[in-house]
């Protein structure tokens, strides 16, 4: 207890002053928490407050944020080529800092890497827009990230006997590495499956494991929202039931998760869906969605702003803007970014008027869409309608193209019917009155603009051939009645 207390003091000191964490000390705190859970079964409420840091009051927050932002700007201006060049041409003014766009990061990733850093791992974004962004991380950052994630996941309920399956892309180096490290620290089981055929994913989820000290099936599923949608579709259309799985929690991320899809996933897979927001560029800053569907951010890890995409001025509460993030030291020391424009649209919320369990924590709405689609209906609004309709296949494929008096919505549906059209038109009239028309097409490739989702990063597997008979005949193979023994 004594040594644990001292380590926690050291951790708190780093959080308060912005000095580097002791990676070794953090690993020991993780081990302390594992030991605590082994001994007592559960944590106390104070554990979460101690480790995840309660939000400071407004004045203290202002002081800490100001100091941390100045430190981040100083580090970037003195140690990265991009910001050294930029601040060489402009005065350093923390009230008028440059916006860093994804295009700038893509054009010269090396220019954002600190001279003082020791980069060891390059993580790339999925590059759905064509060119991925590259972000380098140091061993220190990876150690800190793994430890913080291990602490957060244990406080959220992850235990040694759980088994986590990651259905994210196997090429996504950072999440895969982090899953492995985190699982090693916590002691839970983990398996990297990747974005495979949804039938293989179901196979992994339903297969009994029977490992010593572990749950009998996969308990936690990590997947992009579009891949989760593909799995839900397969479960709904196949002969699978939630009882076939042993899931306890599902963590979708990386894409918009609609309320409709969340409910369908919970029904199909039999586990609560806990949505988070994260992006490789702004690691380790992450948004956590509360019970009232606000997205909350811990502001001690970075500055979170909601800005007008055109003027880059802060928007008022209730208005929509783009999420702009500045990760603070001591969380980042390699790829340093100031006011990084994520491109994700959110609605700014008045934090002081919230009544959820995280009411005092900075909050926005969930991601509504991308900044480049601000002119038409927001992606979330469209998806929310389309994903309530079981006749439209998941993941949803649609395109918006300009029409005479507004955008026209094109949706890929294998068997369009008049009844479906009328149902959709009725829904659209209620929620998206600005649309000029609806077009259903049976071929996703014939959409006027390609609808790319992360589930398209499909990884090939030889295993699929073994599943083909099952796909042709989804009915289960019944054991012969005389072999059923006691259960017959």
């Amino acid at each position: 207890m004594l040594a644990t207390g001292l380590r926690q003091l050291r951790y708190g000191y780093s959080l308060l002053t912005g000095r580097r964490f002791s990676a070794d000390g953090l690993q020991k705190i993780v081990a302390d928490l594992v030991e605590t859970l082994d001994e007592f079964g559960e944590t106390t409420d104070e554990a979460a407050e101690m480790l995840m840091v309660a939000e400071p009051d407004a004045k203290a927050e202002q002081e800490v944020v100001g100091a941390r932002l100045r430190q981040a700007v100083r580090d970037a201006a003195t140690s990265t080529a991009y910001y050294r060049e930029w601040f060489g041409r402009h005065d350093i003014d923390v009230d008028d800092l440059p916006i860093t766009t994804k295009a700038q990061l893509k054009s010269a990733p090396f220019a954002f890497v600190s001279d003082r850093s020791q980069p060891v791992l390059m993580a790339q974004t999925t590059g759905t827009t064509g060119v991925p962004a590259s972000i380098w991380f140091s061993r220190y950052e990876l150690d800190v990230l793994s430890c913080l994630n291990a602490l957060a996941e244990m406080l959220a309920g992850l235990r040694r006997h759980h088994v986590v399956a990651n259905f994210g892309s196997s090429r996504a180096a950072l999440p895969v590495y982090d899953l492995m490290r985190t699982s090693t620290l916590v002691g839970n089981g983990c398996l990297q499956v990747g974005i495979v055929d949804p039938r293989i994913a179901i196979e992994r989820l339903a297969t009994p494991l029977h490992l010593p000290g572990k749950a009998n099936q996969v308990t936690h599923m990590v997947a992009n929202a579009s891949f989760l949608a593909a799995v839900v579709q397969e479960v709904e259309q196949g002969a699978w039931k939630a009882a076939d799985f042993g899931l306890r929690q599902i963590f979708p991320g990386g894409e918009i998760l609609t309320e409709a899809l969340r409910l369908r996933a919970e029904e199909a897979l039999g586990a609560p869906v806990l949505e988070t927001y994260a992006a490789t560029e702004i690691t380790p800053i992450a948004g956590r969605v509360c019970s009232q569907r606000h997205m909350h951010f811990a502001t001690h890890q970075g500055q979170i702003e909601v800005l007008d995409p055109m003027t880059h001025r802060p928007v008022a509460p209730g208005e929509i803007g783009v999420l702009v993030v500045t990760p603070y030291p001591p969380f980042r020391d390699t790829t340093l970014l100031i006011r990084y424009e994520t491109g994700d649209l959110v609605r700014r919320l008045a934090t002081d008027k919230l009544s959820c369990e995280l009411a005092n924590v900075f909050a926005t709405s969930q991601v509504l869409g991308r900044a480049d689609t601000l002119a038409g209906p927001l992606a979330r609004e469209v998806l929310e309608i389309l994903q309530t309709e079981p006749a439209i296949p998941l993941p949803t494929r649609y395109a918006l193209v300009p029409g005479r008096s507004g955008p026209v919505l094109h949706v890929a549906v294998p068997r369009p019917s008049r009844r479906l059209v009328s149902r959709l038109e009725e829904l659209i009239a209620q929620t998206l009155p600005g649309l000029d028309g609806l077009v259903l097409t049976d071929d996703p490739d014939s959409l006027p603009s390609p609808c790319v989702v992360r589930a398209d990063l499909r990884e090939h597997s030889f295993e699929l051939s073994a599943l083909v008979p099952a796909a042709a005949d989804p009915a289960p193979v019944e054991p012969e009645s005389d072999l059923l023994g006691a259960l017959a």
Partner: protein
Amino acid sequence: VKYETQILTQTSVVASIMIACALYLWRIEIRRPPIGRFNRADVTTITVIIIAIPFAYAALPVAVASTVFGIVFCTAIQTALSPIVGGRIATMITLAIAAADIALAIWGRHGWITVANDIIVGCALVGVTNIWVQSGAKASYVAVFAGVLAIYDPIVTWLSPLMQQLFVQLTDLPFAPLLSLVGHIRLRLGLGDALMFALWPVVLAKAYGRVAAWIGGALSIGTLVVIEVLLLAGRLPNLVAVMAIYGPVVVLQYVVLRLTRGPERTTAAWRASRTARHTERVESVDGRTRALAAARELDQLAAGTYAAFDDGVLVGTGHTPAQARRSARLAGCPAVPVVVRTG
């Protein structure tokens, strides 16, 4: 005072403290640290402190040493009382007891200060033992602690004059770290001895259950009575190294329990056993062994078919493990079966 009365009084007081510690454990949940548990590092720290106490008392000015022990005792008492009467009242009661002890020492009330000191030490022991045990202290740690004291105690008691000097020096001081009871110098228990007597049955209750705790308590009281009788019969030197006798008893009981009962329980398992709280079931090894044996004898299925077994009984088949699991569910098997590929 007759020797028999002294023995009876001392034994009763120690037994009362043991019972108080056990009742506290049974009825009151103490606030534990949010992260961390009582571990080897803590045992090492406590051992060093216990070993250092005589030297500290000899080296430090009396007022400083008394202040240090006063703070330690008051913290333990306040922590123990807080869940019962609330933090503020607990603080007030603790301060009142401490003030009384100091006042009696200043006024030189010889008999009364002994009683006040014993009350403070007794209450502090209830607090300390429960803080330790409810913070996850293991019986193995306590046994190691007892083993170390069993070596240290005779050295400091019999081979050096330190302990003798200490007992004389501590007479009538507030917050003296000993249980002195009736003033006869030979029947005093040092803080380490008293702590071990109070702690052992309580940690056994958590680790191995009530029966082990009762046996531990009986062995402790029995050892104390034997020491007292031998002392009065003149078979032991005037100053007894109690842990030299009691330490091996503790270690021996732990070894017997470990060999016969296996690993000790965690705090979670102990609490679950008291409240019948549900804990997540993890598959037993037997189910897997039976499934493998049953699969070997299975010749009705085509090679490469996956067979699902529940407790060695075939409950489903499929082209893949997942399909076999689903087949078992459709056949009415509520458990997750063990799936084996045949052939």
